[in-house]
């Protein structure tokens, strides 16, 4: 697994033939051809595309046995740049993303300094333009310094390229401020994306229950998630703002979203791949790579999350990529930081749900590409002619084992070390250019 050397050659037409095309934006699942023009846009994608013939000088790739999807979009990624470049830079994350089939991601503002100012949003965009091999979109802080006290310049930040507003890893405790921020954001049609952890009730380190009790670890009850979610949904209803619950983890949260939507609230929600793949028992003897926020829940909750993805209650799947170093993870469980990396394993872990017949493949790709692009207004998530040629080529069955040394991320805190997967990205195209090839 190595990053493809950037192809410096003059732009040419690329043809992917005999490929199974899964394009949720058109509900399309058929075998055919994808033709990528010299301008990096899709000329044609479908079973009828081959009728157009192959232009002279085109690069033709026979993709028999492979699936082509719109490039994956990961809406929740934490980075170390600026401020903690030893953990992850924009460039290193972009290479990890490409290896995971991800062509666009949204970067969280939890950096040092916090992305709460247009100069910093512009810095991220410039760095991404110069160094990243995939599309990087900044999410700006909803409150200055993520302190939860004053709102940021939502309008100006949006104009400079912020695609969402969030309080990052921090919850927002001040309900009045939340109401004002949502009211104000509505005028800009801005999405407010929040994590859910009630400050007092959510003060534990793992899922509350028998397992935590035996380990002597303080628990986080599911109510610590449901209470702020219900509150946010009420305020979203009151203000008619676009609200996105970033990472839900328990069955009751999915139910709360369903009920709120029935009331007409403009709400979407996401789940991290970890909460679709793992449960609290994976913590075993205090394994800190499994210390996450929200905490890993019970197996029943994991199954409920997968079912909620299948039925569309949960809109999107995110990696929640959160690089941590030994200095923040090689500690007693309660003292370790939350978070796990995930850019390179999200697709493979999600394919388990396809192999288990728990979530249809079309819905999985939708949840990792078309839907997040739609929720956050990104130019991505489709293979329609004219669209930017961001494409992920997937071998659904390729067996592989996650080896720490092979990960491109600068941090190695993966909960999937030594995991056996079936399926992975074999090539990733961004704007028609191949940025990763297995």
């Amino acid at each position: 697994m190595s990053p493809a050397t950037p192809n410096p050659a003059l732009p040419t037409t690329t043809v992917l033939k005999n490929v199974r095309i899964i394009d949720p934006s058109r509900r399309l699942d058929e075998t055919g051809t994808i033709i990528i023009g010299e301008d990096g846009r899709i000329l044609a994608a479908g079973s009828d595309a081959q009728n157009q013939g192959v232009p002279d000088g085109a690069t033709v790739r026979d993709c028999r046995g492979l699936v082509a999807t719109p490039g994956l979009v990961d809406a929740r990624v934490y980075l170390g740049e600026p401020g903690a470049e030893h953990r992850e830079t924009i460039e290193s994350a972009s290479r990890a993303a490409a290896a995971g089939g991800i062509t666009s991601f949204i970067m969280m503002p939890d950096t040092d300094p916090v992305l709460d100012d247009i100069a910093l949003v512009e810095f991220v965009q410039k760095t991404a333009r110069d160094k990243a091999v995939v599309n990087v979109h900044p999410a700006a802080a909803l409150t200055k310094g993520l302190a939860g006290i004053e709102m940021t310049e939502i309008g100006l930040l949006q104009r400079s390229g912020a695609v969402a507003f969030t309080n990052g890893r921090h919850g927002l405790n001040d309900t009045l401020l939340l109401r004002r921020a949502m009211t104000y954001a509505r005028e800009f049609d801005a999405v407010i994306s929040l994590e859910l952890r009630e400050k007092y009730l959510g003060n534990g380190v793992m899922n509350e229950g028998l397992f935590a009790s035996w380990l002597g670890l303080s628990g986080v009850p599911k109510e610590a998630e449901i209470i702020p979610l219900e509150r946010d949904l009420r305020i979203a209803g009151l203000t008619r703002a676009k609200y996105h619950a970033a990472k839900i983890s328990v069955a009751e949260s999915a139910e709360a979203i369903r009920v709120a939507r029935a009331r007409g609230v403009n709400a979407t929600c996401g789940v991290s791949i970890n909460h679709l793949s793992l449960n609290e028992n994976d913590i075993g003897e205090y394994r800190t790579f499994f210390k996450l926020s929200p905490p890993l829940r019970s197996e029943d909750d994991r199954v409920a999350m997968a079912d909620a993805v299948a039925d569309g209650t949960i809109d999107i799947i995110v990696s929640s990529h959160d690089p941590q170093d030994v200095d923040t993870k090689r500690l007693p469980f309660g003292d370790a930081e939350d978070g796990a990396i995930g850019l390179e394993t999200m697709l493979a872990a999600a394919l388990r749900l396809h192999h288990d017949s728990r979530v249809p493949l079309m819905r999985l790709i939708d949840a990792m590409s078309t839907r997040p692009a739609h929720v956050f207004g990104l130019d991505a998530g489709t293979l329609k002619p004219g669209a930017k040629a961001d494409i992920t080529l997937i071998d659904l069955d390729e067996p592989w084992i996650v080896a720490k040394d092979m990960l491109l991320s600068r941090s190695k805190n993966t909960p999937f070390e030594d995991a056996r997967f079936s399926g992975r990205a074999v090539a990733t195209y961004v704007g028609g250019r191949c940025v990763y090839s297995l």
Partner: protein
Amino acid sequence: MVFFPHRHLLGIKGLTEQDITYLLDKADEAVKISRQREKKTSTLRGLTQINLFFEASTRTQASFELAGKRLGADVMNMSVGNSSVKKGETLIDTAMTLNAMRPDVLVLRHSSAGAAALLAQKVACSVVNAGDGQHEHPTQALLDALTIRRAKGKLSRIIVAICGDVLHSRVARSNILLLNAMGARVRVVAPSTLLPSGIRDMSVEVFHSMEEGLKDADVVMMLRLQRERMAGAFVPSVREYFHFFGLDAEKLKAAKEDALVMHPGPMNRGVEIASEVADGPQSVIEQQVEMGVAVRMAVMETLLVSQNQGERA
């Protein structure tokens, strides 16, 4: 032949009835040594024991120190106050430094659950957990079991009521595990705010009244209530707590006439236990302290001897 197939003592979890019986039998022998005029043996001569205490504990540390010395080991005490740990050095860095000095056993007390397990992964010697956060305190459970066994002759089918702050108590967790492994009937008696989530699935009977919980009990094991948890946070006041859950002569009447009264110490007299009971004829609190040294001798001898045999094998 190795009778005890473990390199570390990180908790009671993972020990079988045979393992526990083996340690208790060994401890019975160690009691004899401690009662002799000549208390020093050469069992662990030449071996090094480091007591690494990140939480202050005069009693447990002294007990481990004496145990090591009576076995002839060289014992070094390291407590947080005089070390660089306060300057930001992590548990692991400290452990690696000590490991390089080639100790044979590290005794760890730490405020975080799982600290002993983490340490055991990183060092080359045996690790004894002397209390990790709210997780386990295995030598306390062993010394409690030894005290009970010597008084009652057995552990199976006796009724033990563990009373008080079970939620924050590593002593309670280790005792629940050990007593269940030995076939005792375990009860917990506490207000609901001081019980962990899922307690009903921990193989115990749950009571919220001392009178009911102590009825026909063979052993009444009191737990310490930390001062910061007394006023308002978990219980309304010391007065109210003592009224409902403090052990006095009146409440003790519910238990069997010859029931033992135990406490891991240090006691809050007038909070969880009245002096009349703590110093009364049914109290075995001082015996517990004596058994503590014996149990720790048994544990260290067992770990170090089986480890050496493992190396030879």
